[in-house]
């Protein structure tokens, strides 16, 4: 394992633009910069420099600031343990050097970092090498290319969850007191409602069917019903503009459809 530190290669360039990917990253950087041994870290010096960097990182308001602080506490704790005199009466087992609690994770992390770098140096698709058909996001001025609003939505589960969260935020919060009004709509009713609405309108914004000032259940059912109608191919969903928050635009998949599917959901 000790050979590993000979292979710790550190790019100094990230200091300008890129930030540290974590506290271990910052520590490794300091160890390399001071040209010290991972197994024999001058804790006082490194702690001081670590805290200096931390002050600068905090200005960046990193999400990971908490993890950086934990490491700062660990460093300070090790430093204080080193200051305590060790009993030298020969009866007790010598304690492990407290700095080892740093060395092991550091060496493991150095390996992770090296593996990450080696992944990043591979011939990456859509960065170094390109395959046929991987040019979907090529020049949008191509007149034959579909306009952004006509491109079908391709979303992951996470984008759906985010979309739902966006909707849920707009649901009016119950004001003072308890709301006794029951929402009695079912998924089947909602499916049929949207089906009839869409047959008439041919295309519409999601917010039109979700409606304003609806309760949580109604909004959730509209959301699910829209997805279900898209899944069975009755509707197509498109995103007009990701920023405007109006949600997807719904199109009738077959504009000539007269009835569409019947639903018998509970």
């Amino acid at each position, binding site marked *: 394992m000790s050979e590993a530190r000979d292979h710790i290669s550190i790019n100094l360039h990230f200091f300008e633009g890129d930030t540290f*990917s974590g506290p271990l990253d910052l520590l490794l950087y300091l160890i390399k910069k001071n040209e010290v041994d991972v197994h024999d870290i001058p804790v006082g010096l490194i702690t001081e420099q670590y805290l200096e960097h931390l002050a600068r990182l905090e200005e960046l308001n990193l999400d990971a600031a908490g993890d950086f602080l934990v490491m700062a506490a660990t460093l300070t704790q090790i430093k204080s343990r080193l200051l305590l005199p060790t009993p030298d009466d020969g009866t007790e087992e010598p304690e492990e050097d407290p700095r080892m609690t740093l060395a092991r994770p550091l060496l493991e992390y150095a390996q992770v970092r090296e593996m*990450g*770098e080696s992944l990043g140096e591979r011939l990456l698709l859509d960065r170094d*090498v390109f395959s046929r058909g991987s*040019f979907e996001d090529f020049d949008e001025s191509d007149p034959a290319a579909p306009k952004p609003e006509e491109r079908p939505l391709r979303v992951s589960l996470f984008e759906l969850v985010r979309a739902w969260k966006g909707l849920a935020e707009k649901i009016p919060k119950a004001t003072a007191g308890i709301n006794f009004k029951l929402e009695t709509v079912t998924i089947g009713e909602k499916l049929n409602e949207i089906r009839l609405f869409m047959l008439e309108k041919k295309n519409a914004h999601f917010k039109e069917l979700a409606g304003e000032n609806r309760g949580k259940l109604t909004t959730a059912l509209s959301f699910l019903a829209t997805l279900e109608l898209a899944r069975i191919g009755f509707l197509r969903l498109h995103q007009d503009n990701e920023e405007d928050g109006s949600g997807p635009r719904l199109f009738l998949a077959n504009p000539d459809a007269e009835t569409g599917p019947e639903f018998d959901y509970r």
Partner: protein
Amino acid sequence: MQPLKKIVEALLFVAEGPVNAEKLLPAFEGEYGPEEINEALKELKEEYDNSLDRAFGVREVAGGYQFRSRPEFGVYAIRLKKKSPARLSRAGLETLAVIAYRQPVLRAEIEKLRGVDAGGVLRSLMEKDLIRISSRQDNLPGRPMLYATTARFLETFDLPSLNDLPTAEEMANPDPEESDFRVNKLFD
């Protein structure tokens, strides 16, 4: 009947993703078997890689073969792209590396190795379809999720299979013939 290698070449050209003998088999209606098709794919790769002076070659990725432009031409392709090329942060690459080598792996293990919260990075890797939730650790409280890489990961990183990830020894000492280091033994 056209020569096998030519047919395979045509199919490789029109294919949308990496293809292997199994995927191409239905095109031959029993005329050729998987072994012969596979042989033809290998020969094609060999030809494109070594004897033909072309700007693209046949790469073996994610269990199949695919035409890909050579890296020296990537810079031109990128200029045509409207979006900037998919960039992975160092945090993303490190997290991917841990998952690739240790999968299936718990978020807690990733965070322990990197010393930093992994939530945001995992989400972004998941959105890029590079990792997935493979299962849950049933014997731990809360049945935490286990992460693994996807086929898209192999495609993106130009890897035929997970066994082709370089080992720690290969990274340090670039002679791939030397070691048969097992991938999942890397950290043990």
